[in-house]
């Protein structure tokens, strides 16, 4: 019963944030100074036919919404306009049809371009995140268990240092080093690899994934170590740890059965909060390693002023983070039985 109410609350909140992001994403690109969308249809890279197609598809000749036309400068439109005949309504309608816009640079639908790249990003984040969590948590447990020892101070310093490194810079240094040591300098596959057997292709993919993932792991590991350390230090000072010790359990048993699950709780929250920063890191890593993912697409879109890609990419990222947060909340309630009754 409680579990259901908890689920409903969290789901409701996620849907609310989702709507907020969708609205924000629209206004960001339609009413910001410079009217990027309207400017876009004057983009010299597009053919006349495409411009006409875009105009019709997104209703760019229509008012933004009724009453307010644009925020720059604040222009008031006619409030008599049918709300269903505005850019905003068309935007929402398109969104539900999976239409994220039309790239000026590629002359292709944004959803096609980002769809291809989404999986590459999920692969990079997935592998990197798992490694960062596993290594970070292990280091954190060691540091907390051996508090105030050389191991503790070592882990603390390494984590703080890793946290302080600019992601893109670490990437650049690794590309620089890797290119002199036989590592691929970018992309996710050696050209022409598709004619080779499947396992050769997989090996090639792993080979390309190595340095980007390493960068990702180093950068994000530190924060998990720090949090795990401080959370475990709290847990290990709890009375129930003393009970476990009084029961005659060994140190290993206490860590495994009594400390780890409790100490992991804040980590789950951090993973969700971190996904926002993770995306920031991925943009940098993908740009440096020319990894064909979402982040790389955003980087290119910035330098190419390809606003539809930027808009679609931002929406996709924001939605992913909201979903991940929702999953983290559910995981938390599974790990901590107290949550459902609160």
């Amino acid at each position, binding site marked *: 019963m409680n579990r259901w109410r908890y689920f409903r609350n969290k789901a409701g909140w996620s849907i609310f944030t989702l709507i907020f992001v969708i609205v924000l994403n629209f206004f960001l690109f339609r009413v910001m100074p410079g009217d990027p969308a309207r400017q876009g249809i004057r983009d010299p890279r597009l053919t006349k036919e495409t411009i006409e197609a875009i105009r019709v598809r997104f209703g760019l000749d229509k008012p933004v919404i009724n009453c307010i036309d644009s925020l720059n400068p604040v222009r008031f439109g006619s409030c008599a306009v049918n709300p269903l005949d505005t850019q905003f309504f068309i935007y929402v309608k398109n969104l539900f049809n999976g239409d994220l816009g039309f790239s000026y640079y590629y002359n292709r639908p944004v959803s096609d371009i980002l769809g291809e790249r989404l999986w590459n990003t999920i692969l990079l984040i997935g592998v990197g995140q798992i490694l960062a969590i596993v290594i970070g948590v292990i280091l954190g447990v060691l540091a907390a268990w051996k508090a105030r020892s050389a191991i503790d101070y070592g882990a603390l310093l390494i984590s703080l*240092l890793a946290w302080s490194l*600019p992601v*893109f810079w670490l990437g650049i*240094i690794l590309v620089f080093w890797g290119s002199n040591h036989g590592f691929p300098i970018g992309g996710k596959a050696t050209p022409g690899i598709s004619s080779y057997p499947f396992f050769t292709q997989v090996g090639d993919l792993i080979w390309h994934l190595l340095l980007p993932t390493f960068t990702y792991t180093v950068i994000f590991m530190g924060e998990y170590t720090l949090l795990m350390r401080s959370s475990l230090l709290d847990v290990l000072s709890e009375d*129930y740890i003393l009970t476990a010790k009084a029961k005659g359990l060994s140190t290993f048993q206490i860590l495994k059965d009594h400390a780890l699950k409790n100490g992991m709780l804040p980590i789950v929250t951090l993973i969700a909060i971190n996904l926002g920063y993770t995306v920031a890191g991925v*943009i*940098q890593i993908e740009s440096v390693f020319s990894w064909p993912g979402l982040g790389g697409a955003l980087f290119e879109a910035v330098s190419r002023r390809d606003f539809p890609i930027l808009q679609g990419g931002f929406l996709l990222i*924001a939605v992913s983070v909201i979903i991940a947060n929702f999953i983290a909340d559910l995981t938390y309630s599974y790990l901590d039985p107290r949550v459902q009754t609160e």
Partner: protein
Amino acid sequence: MGPQTAELKVSVASTSPFLDFWQTFSRNRMAVAGLVMLVTIITLAVFASVLAPYDPKSSVDITSSDIYNPPSSAHWLGTDDAGRDILSSFLFGARVSLIVGFFAAFISVIIGGTIGVVAGFYGGRTENLLMRFTDLMLVIPDLPLIVVIVALTKPSLLNIIIIIGVFGWTTTARIVRSQTLAVKSRKFVLRARAIGAGNVHIIMKHILPLVMPLLVVNAILVISLAILNESTLSFLGLGDPTATSWGQMLNFAFVRGAMSAGAWWALVMPGVGIAWVVFGLTLFGQGLEQVLNPRLESHHLSPGRRSVQSDAVIESATVKKKSKKRKDAPLLLDVRNLSVNYISHDNVVAKAVHNVSLQLHEGELVGLVGESGCGKTTLMLALMRLLPAAGQIVNGHINFRGKDLTTLNEDELQKLRWSGISIIFQGAMNALNPVRTVGDQIKEAIIKHMPSYAPGVLDDRVIELLDLVGISKDYKDQYPHQYSGGMRQRAMIAMALSCDPDVIIADEPTTALDVMIQAQILELLDDLRKKLGLAIIFVTHDLGVVAEMCDSVLVMYGGVTAEYADVDTIYNAARHPYTQELLKSFPDLSQPEKRLISIPGYPPKLDELPEGCRFAPRCPLAFERCTKEMPILHELEDGYHIASCHLVEGG
């Protein structure tokens, strides 16, 4: 309560709080290292125009062959793609990065601080609305948003500062709000409100100073995040083209072929600069947090000190005491002259338990009585060798099952704990793990100590144990928070019984429970003792309980035995003034007109013990000798009754 009593507050005499702070600060190596790193880079940035050997904007060497020149005597850090001196760009770049970092963080901290204080102080709908908004902003990935907005607007330095600042306040708001919540119900705030001080006045004068330390630590984090965000923006090509920051230097080098030219010098230095500042800030912030909010030195798994056996002869009567009622029962646990010291990190020694002896026979119930801070819990923890890391057994023996527990190693102790001696802690809410079912936590001990139980029978055993303490088997797979307070305490008792121990230590098992439940729990313990033949050491403040249940009583004061005797002797013929005073403060329902008298004053601090008798400062009967000489234990009535007081000397 608990072993936390071991944490000693050592006051250092000082002239001002600032000097105090500076002393702790300068001892924190992390904070000092961070500060040095920051001061270095800020100095370089401030004096960039003096220190830089060249104008960073003009190309020094114009010929194309001079592009990406390696470090040389003319250009210490080499030149970039346009032949500009990298050292000079680096020094001026420091200015840009630091300015963006500090000013953006300033904006974030002002916004976040205001939202946090207002939400925390006003509460209600205001708080709800503001915190929902904060949660919303927290979910939206900030860097992509910043990238999008900067890409849509003109990338000037001012724009970048404002945009980074406006989207970086969420963590500040959350931290400040919870601190405000914690602070606003403090007495002086309530008092200020009572005398009619305005909200703004209260916030500025009373709340803000208390929130400030936390805000400063958070601001340091926000600065480093702002610097990292700026560098990322610049690296993505969204920096102010007129002000070259470190991120932009990297962007130029990366985009303009420094990699293929092998020009590592153009790539290394700007990144080192960013990492230097951020690392310096991080060290400084972490160190500052440690100074402002010191954590415990150790936890329950920290390696403890080995017990040392000085075997110093301690002047006292040999304890022969044996309960009159139980004198035929065999001796189970024999504690002899046990002393425990706590040693703080400043090597201040607190003699928490000094020369205490205790005998426990089969089926006996010994009451351990005394005010808080008299060493009762320390003694109990020492019996199971569960002392916190700072605690050390410095003298005495604990004989149990033919072994001296003070000499056992960790493995041997683990086998003995729970199967030989188990403990019921006070406050079962915290003593049970909140994320595991109660049944599971009971089962765990049985698996450890009684491996002969087949998995199928295990559940039956758990149900049987729960039944024994009156908990329905339906609760076996429930979590502690689903139990009531009394049930948790019962579950704790079931757990303590699970491995058939000879001795159970009950450390104030009924505090924080209401009177009815207390009575039930006590009755249960007494029943179980009779049914299972347990020997129990019962730690309590409650002399009523002692009178009703115990066979003998050990009264502790300031870490030493005040009096130790049969329960009847204690109630009818107490000899130690402390025992007598304690009895006066215990309500006797048969004489309702008698006033309750509490003993004025407090037990001594264990690291500042008086020279003579530890009770002398509060003793109504103290005379000169009491303040000079510590009394030894005197034997009365054939060793069945002992007391440490000069008044009872020689019987």
